[in-house]
Structure formats: structure tokens, C-alpha cells
């Protein structure tokens, strides 16, 4: 029996490792590098109802141990994502988690309704935490009542389980988690990026044309681990943890903190082969440490 396979709402995962939304596009580029079927799942780029160009460039900046991005939810729109991207992804044996975004409740509901009908979409990830869009977005992720309402509305229409992606830019992450649990969420994914900024000393202006951006990478890992630790103790929802994962030790750390599975974002840019590499290393690590199944580690730091 596999040490890595696990069942989460809607998802039969071969292993608990998957690329995080926005850091893997729709998989096409990475499919040239390795077989996408080796992945636990794929969280595809945020999809909105209409196509979006996103923010002006520069859209990324480097920071100590991390990076800022302000892509601005660029995507070809619901229709094309279904017709081109999801259709293309059907050749792989891998469940898709569709990251759903919008500016208002109706947008989310509309995208959720349509995209959840697609065969290989096994779960939705409600992106209520993107810091890089002016309207809506982040507001949904910082007001518990709003997040709960949105979750409820999306649950009503979704044909697959709904995971809600939490923003770390809040005073009380547990309150947010409980709100979406009350709203009927089937799981939580966390964390999205912290809001940050870099200023170009030559021009005196922010490096990013959007001025602020989302901070990700190893620098944010301690914040992510702490939040997973807190939320996993206070809700009954499964958690897909992320934020700075780049080694097998990081996966174990998230697991001990209380995550069921992990997603990998920024590290894909540093090493595009990171996902399959970590899957192999994780299996080896568990074997070496006599762990029969990854789930044994879940929440051990507080149990």
C-alpha cells in the first residue's frame, strides 16, 4: 500500500503534492518537462468569467528569500479554459482543482457552476484572497461574514467539493476558517500571499506596476505553518497547506502543523522539476523514518 495516497473530499490523490494555482499555468509548459500524471493534483490558474489581461508589467520582483507578484488574475476566461485547457488536460490521469475568481458573488457563482461540470475538475478552490485585483477579491477573504455567504452561494451550484483559499492578510485566521466552514466549505487551502512591496531605488517608485504585490516563497513559510497549526486545531476541515514549500522537510513541517496535503508555488520557478522530485523524496523520507502513511504525521505538533 502506498505511503502517499490519500482521499480528500472529491480528490483521490496519488500523493499529497500538487502545484499551487498561478504557478503552473494550465500545465502545458510543465508537460514538456515531466509526466503530469505523477502529480497528486493540479491547481490551475485562477479562472474568471471573462478573459483578463491582468496588470501591467513588471509583475514580479525578488525579495529576501521570497518574491512578489502582481499578475492580476490574467486568464483566457471561463469559456476558453473549459474548451482548450481543461479539455487538453484530460489526457492526464490527474484530478484538477479549479481556482475560481471574480469581482462579485455572481462571477464566482457563474464560474463555479460551469467549471464544476467538467469531468476532470474534481474540486474547486475559491480564490477569495488574491491581493492583486482592485475590485472584490481580497474583501471576500478578509470579512468572515462575506466569505461565509460566498461559500454558501458557490456550494449551492457546485457539482464538486469546494475548498476555500484563505488570505493570510487578516487579524484572525481562525475566524475566517470557521466562517467558511459554517458556509459549507469542504476543505481549506492556505495560505495565499502576504501583501508586500519593493521600491526601486533608481526610480524611487515601486518596482511592480501594480505597486503592491503578493509575497510568496520560503520567507513566508513560518507564517503559513503557524496559520495551518492554528486552523487545523479549530476546524474539522481538511487542509491543503502552502507557502514556501521547497524541500521534503517543508512538506513534513506542514504535515506536522496540521496539513493533509501541500501545494507548491514559487519553488516551481526555482526548479521546474520540483514537484516530481519532492514526490519521490517524500516517499523515501517516510520509508527511512518508518512512517507507514503520511497521514500519521498530520497535526502531530499539537496532538
Amino acid at each position: 500500500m502506498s505511503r502517499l495516497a490519500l482521499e480528500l473530499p472529491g480528490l483521490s490523490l496519488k500523493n499529497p503534492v500538487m502545484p499551487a494555482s498561478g504557478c503552473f499555468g494550465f500545465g502545458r509548459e510543465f508537460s514538456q518537462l515531466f509526466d503530469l500524471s505523477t502529480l497528486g493534483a493540479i491547481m490551475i490558474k485562477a479562472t474568471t468569467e471573462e478573459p483578463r489581461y491582468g496588470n501591467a508589467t513588471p509583475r514580479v520582483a525578488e525579495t529576501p528569500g521570497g518574491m512578489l507578484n502582481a499578475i492580476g488574475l490574467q486568464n483566457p476566461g471561463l469559456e476558453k479554459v473549459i474548451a482548450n485547457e481543461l479539455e487538453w488536460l484530460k489526457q492526464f490521469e490527474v484530478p484538477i482543482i479549479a481556482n475560481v475568481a471574480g469581482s462579485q458573488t455572481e462571477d464566482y457563482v457563474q464560474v463555479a457552476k460551469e467549471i464544476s461540470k467538467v469531468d476532470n475538475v474534481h474540486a474547486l478552490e475559491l480564490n477569495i484572497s488574491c491581493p492583486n485585483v482592485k475590485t472584490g477579491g481580497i474583501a471576500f477573504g478578509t470579512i468572515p461574514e462575506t466569505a461565509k455567504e460566498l461559500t454558501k452561494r458557490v456550494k449551492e451550484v457546485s457539482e464538486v467539493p469546494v475548498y476555500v483559499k484563505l488570505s493570510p492578510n487578516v487579524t484572525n485566521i481562525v475566524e475566517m476558517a470557521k466562517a467558511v466552514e459554517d458556509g459549507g466549505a469542504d476543505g481549506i487551502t492556505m495560505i495565499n500571499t502576504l501583501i508586500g512591496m519593493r521600491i526601486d531605488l533608481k526610480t524611487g517608485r515601486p518596482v511592480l506596476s501594480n505597486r503592491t504585490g503578493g509575497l510568496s516563497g520560503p520567507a513566508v513559510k513560518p507564517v503559513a505553518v503557524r496559520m495551518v497549526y492554528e486552523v487545523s486545531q479549530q476546524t474539522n476541515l481538511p487542509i491543503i497547506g502552502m507557502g514556501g514549500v521547497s524541500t521534503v522537510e517543508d512538506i513534513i513541517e506542514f504535515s506536522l502543523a496540521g496539513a493533509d496535503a501541500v501545494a507548491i508555488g514559487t519553488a516551481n520557478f526555482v526548479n521546474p522539476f520540483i514537484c516530481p522530485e519532492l514526490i519521490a523524496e517524500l516517499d523515501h523520507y517516510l520509508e527511512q523514518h518508518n512512517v507507514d502513511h503520511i497521514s500519521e504525521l498530520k497535526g502531530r505538533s499539537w496532538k
Partner: protein
Amino acid sequence: MIQKELMTVVSQSEIAVNIFEMTLKGALARQIDEPGKFVHLKVGEEMMPLLRRPISIAKIEPEKQEFTMIYRAEGAGTSALSRKRTGDLVDVLGPLGHGFPVEEAAAGQTAILIGGGIGVPPLYELSRRLNEKGVKTIHVLGFQNKQAAFYTEQFAALGDTYVATVDGSLGEQGFVTDIINKHGLKADIFYSCGPTVMLKAVERLHAAPRGYISLEERMGCGIGACFACVCHPAADETGTAYLKICSDGPVFKAGEVAL
């Protein structure tokens, strides 16, 4: 095929003030089939600097399994790269992107290659390939000043070479476009790489009826997955169309992209 390889530094030298020429060896070099492609480098195993750095390929020697880059040591990444010594390893991802189409120039035709500063390097391999094919090349290279200039002799060995410096300390004083105008340079095709302002001016110049330009942008993945490096196509009714510089480019047909 895109590969990731720990390549070995064969040589590294400072060929102008803060400008380094580095040659790397490894199987990956055999994969580079076109001038103008680039590699994405991880400098050091540490998390600082975290991201890779895109650098163009200046010269390819597939038979030796080597390629050469020329880069300016500026920030943390390129400065660290400049401290590498012969025998050190560099983590290379590549080859990436689409390069300059050599096939667009026919034997006997003339190509004008217009480079600015750190945009000059990829034109060198391009010129070698064009000459190999029997295309006549004219080179117009712009630099800040004499101290920042490099490879002028190497280019001169391949074809007529004009050098422009902002302060006139080498070649003629002025911008590359001034030189082209002054000498009335004309060709069947142009290829250009350099700062966006220069590329804009070059496109307006019509030194050749058609041409190709290579663009730069801050990158995340370098392979087309993160949408960090997009630009607008010139023709775009909806406002939502885009091209990715890392995977659709960095070389585009002149006029294809809104500069």
C-alpha cells in the same frame, strides 16, 4: 528540449568594465539550435537570490558542448555569477524561448544587426549563423562609452561594423539610429536587441522592409507558466490578448508587439 543541468564553468573573464564573458560546458549546449534563445540561471544553492536570471546565449559550440554568455554584473544575481571560477558549477535551465529566425534571410541578401548595450550578445551567434549561410551582415552596435563596449572586433571579423557611443569615446558619437541614418544603411532584413526605447526607434527607422526584435521583461518561471512577462500584441481588439516574452519570444517579428 528544455533541460536543467549543472554545467561547468570553462572560462570567465571581464571583457569590459563590469561586463563578463562566461563559457559553460555540458550536454545542454547541444540542445541550443537557434541564436537568440536564452537560459535561466540559478546562481548559488542558497535562497538568496531566489529566482533564476535570464541571460541570452552569445555563442554556441555544440561540438564542444559549450556555449558562451556575455552579461553585465549589476545586482545580486549577476554579481554572484561574476564571482564564479573555472570548474565551478552553474544550474542552467534551457534552452528557452524562440530565437532569431536565420531562415528568414536568404543567401546573398544583406541583414543589418542592431544591438544596444547588453542587447548586443545574442546578435553575435546570429551573425555567425547568417555568415555561415552566405548572408552579408552589417552590425550597428551602441554602447554607453568606450569602457562598456565589447566584441567590436569579433563583429568586425564578420562584416561591416559601426559603433556608436553616447559620449563619443568609441566609434561615432550618438545612438545606433543616428548612425544608420547618417550612413544611410539599408538591408533586406533587420534583427535587433536592446532597450525598448531603442527597439521602438529601430522599428520606425525602416532600415529594412522587415525584421525581428528581442524583448526583455522581469521573469518568474521563464517557461511560460506564470504570466509574469506578458506584453500586448500590436493588433488586439479585445485588450485581453497577450504574448509571453519568455515562451512566445523573446524574439518577435517587428510590429507584432505593442512597444
